[in-house]
């Protein structure tokens, strides 16, 4: 479990904050980044995210696999965008400054470059923050945090249950899959696609039936221990808010406000230096 979400224990001001405050901050930060298309603001947020990352004491190499994964995705996405719409930036910014011309519709325009910069910045703003949340918050605190920010404790507990049973279900999947492979179930390219899908159901059926059984047992166990008795519940792993927590939640809210303010100032979501 501890390995699943890359929680990295450390002494840092960010680790010390409550999960709920960090969750709010992560969500508002992401929202601010979704709303705006002001390149300057995105750049500022990216730099701030990197500073926060530094403060948390998390080392680059500890998250490099995740970053590499996101980077590949980001590059692919940009390539796809370019292939499909090399003139999309021109369309968006309403101006065309060609820098290089390759062939046919493909070339490099300043507008397209700026647009790609925006797309990349959208990633670089959010990824460090999500990583930061995941690496500095114990999964145990997720559920309590969700409840704290207003999600019903019943739904919050579902999240906790999901985290609890992921390792068990993964192990069960492996066990079932190995036993079925021994019987001759083949999921690799040796079989045609249709057969492979059919074979997969030979693994999934026992998995789903045993999960249904698990649902019965777990709900019985929870009921016998009085889950759902009252309209609220307390949390062993919850933390009380401190001044710093209120501060970062307020800061998160302010970021969203700035995004809206920029829409007003720029006369649209886009910041357009070409007009």
């Amino acid at each position, binding site marked *: 479990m501890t390995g699943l979400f890359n929680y990295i224990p450390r002494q840092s001001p960010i680790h010390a904050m409550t999960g709920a405050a960090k969750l709010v901050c992560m969500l508002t930060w992401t929202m601010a980044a979704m709303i705006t298309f002001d390149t300057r603001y995105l750049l500022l947020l990216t730099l701030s995210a990197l500073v926060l990352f530094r403060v948390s004491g998390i080392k680059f190499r500890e998250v490099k696999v995740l970053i590499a994964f996101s980077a590949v995705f980001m590059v692919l996405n940009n390539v796809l965008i370019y292939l499909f719409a090399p003139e999309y930036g021109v369309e968006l910014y309403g101006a065309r400054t060609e820098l290089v011309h390759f062939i046919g519709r493909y070339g490099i325009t300043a507008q397209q470059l700026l647009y790609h910069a925006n797309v990349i910045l959208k990633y670089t703003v959010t990824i460090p923050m999500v990583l930061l949340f995941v690496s500095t918050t114990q999964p145990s605190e997720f559920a309590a945090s969700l409840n704290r920010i207003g999600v019903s404790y019943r739904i919050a507990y579902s999240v906790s249950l999901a985290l609890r049973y992921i390792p068990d279900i993964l192990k069960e999947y492996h066990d079932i899959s190995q036993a079925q492979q021994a019987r001759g179930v083949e999921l690799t390219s040796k079989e045609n696609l249709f057969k492979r899908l059919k074979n997969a159901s030979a693994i999934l059926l026992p998995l789903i039936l045993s999960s249904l059984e698990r649902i019965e047992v777990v709900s019985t166990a*929870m009921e016998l221990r009085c889950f759902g*008795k009252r309209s609220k519940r307390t949390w062993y792993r919850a933390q009380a808010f401190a001044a710093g927590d209120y501060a970062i939640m307020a800061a998160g809210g302010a970021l969203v406000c700035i995004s809206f303010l920029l829409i007003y100032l720029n006369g649209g979501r886009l910041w357009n230096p070409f007009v």
Partner: protein
Amino acid sequence: MPEELIKFSHFGFQYNAQAAPTLYDIDLTVHAGEKILIAGPSGCGKSTLAHCINGLIPFNYPGTATGSLTIRGKETREMNIFDISKVVGTVLQDLDGQFIGLTVGEDIAFALENDEVPQDEMRRRVRETAERVTIADHLDHAPDELSGGQKQRVSMAGIMVDDVDVFLFDEPLANLDPATGKRAIEIIDQIQKDTGAAVLIIEHRLEDVLWRDVDRIVLMGEGRILADLAPDELLCGGYLAEHGIREPLYLTALRYAGVTVTPDMLPHSIRTLRLSEAQKRQVRAWHQAQRPAPPPAPQPPVLQARDIDFCYDNGFHALKGITTDIHRGELMAIVGTNGAGKSTFSKVVCGFEKPQRGTLTLDGQDMAGLSIKERADRIGYVMQNPNQMISKAFIFDEVAFGLRLRGVPEDEVKARVEETLRICGLYPMRNWPVSAVSYGQKKRVTIAAILVLEPQILILDEPTAGQDFKHYTEIMEFLRSLHDQGITVVMITHDMHLMLEYAQRAVVFSGGQIIADDTSANILTSPDIIARANLKETSLYDLALCCGIGEPGAFVQRFIDHDREVRGQ
């Protein structure tokens, strides 16, 4: 007279979905501070009785109750499940299902969280309770970092934290190795003494529960209470054999030796049992009179493992230089605790995991190049839980699945499947849905589905886990009949009875190494091996010592041979 906590009078219960009642005319009273063992074969109604006590009946399982059931003087039908939970705490058999929290501390705190206990008080109570079951050093551990015994202690703590008056344990020994089970019984005893709560233990492994004293044994059968007696009286009454419960082995041995057991001999435990000199002589005489069975003729090895080393990705070094032979036509057991390497070894043999070092040969041929599927044609692997293997709705299709995947023509599939179903006694049910048959029959279906591929070796992981004596015997006799037909059978287990009664030979794993390879009787009478492998001495060993028999291993072996003869008749 202590308070009457639970009182059944003329109580009966019928599930809505069933045609006949499951419980008839139950009269049972549980007083504060009592410790009661409830025993009975599968389907006798003991689980239903437990559900009535903890409130799952009638609140979760609808049905009709007759008569009266009161908890602390109140009719349960007038209470709700939360009120009942404040009096009765239940520890379920499925330890992973009961462990709901992400860590030990959270799980123990679960009931307190639901009661909105403030955090400071909650932390204090969690720590205190964790200390009482000696798990306080693990408060931040996740369930997959704990052993079965530790998980069970967390479950107990999660109930204790709420100060209940009755602890209800549903088959507490089912998922534990023998030594851990013994310790669990000790902890339950300790909890009862410390808290003064009443304890109800539902379990069919009588001898193991009696490791610590109980006040009464309630024996159930076909929905009724057949006996409600002090252990010493119940054990002398001949009730057990009659109702499909295994009696303690030392009592069976005394019976064979012609010793009549009476309650004043305190037969409830081998530690308290009093034998007169004359009775001891009787046992010794029986021992002398038994002819030792000749050891089986040595057979050539079929599977040879040489210096196998395996390390998981997470760095866990599971197998360290394993060298062993499995002989043709053998019926043998691989034993050891969880994490000792026995399951990993079977995974390596089946090709699920690739060893970093060492060789495996089958009939002299190196297996390194064989895929999982190719190995499976010659070595069959049967998982512990049949529900994890069954992937077709109907019995015939389930057994035919492996052949069809191998592209065998349909007429041959039919012939082979039908023949296998006949061997397994499933032929008359061939067109039934798998869901219509019992757990034991499902187990047979999964074995049939592997046998149809005609493997030379059959590996079974805990073939009898969670089965009562009757089903245990049924499954094991079936495996023995397969063995008699020449199939090599390897069983991975920590059931000592299974090992003693059925395995000619046992290989003991501990910490990734083989620490013993001998007859089961010799292994279960060597204190050193027993301690290292988390096993437990068989009570026959203590009996042999108590009667002054100098060769306990031989005594155990003769008992087993004789017992087999008697049961075979």
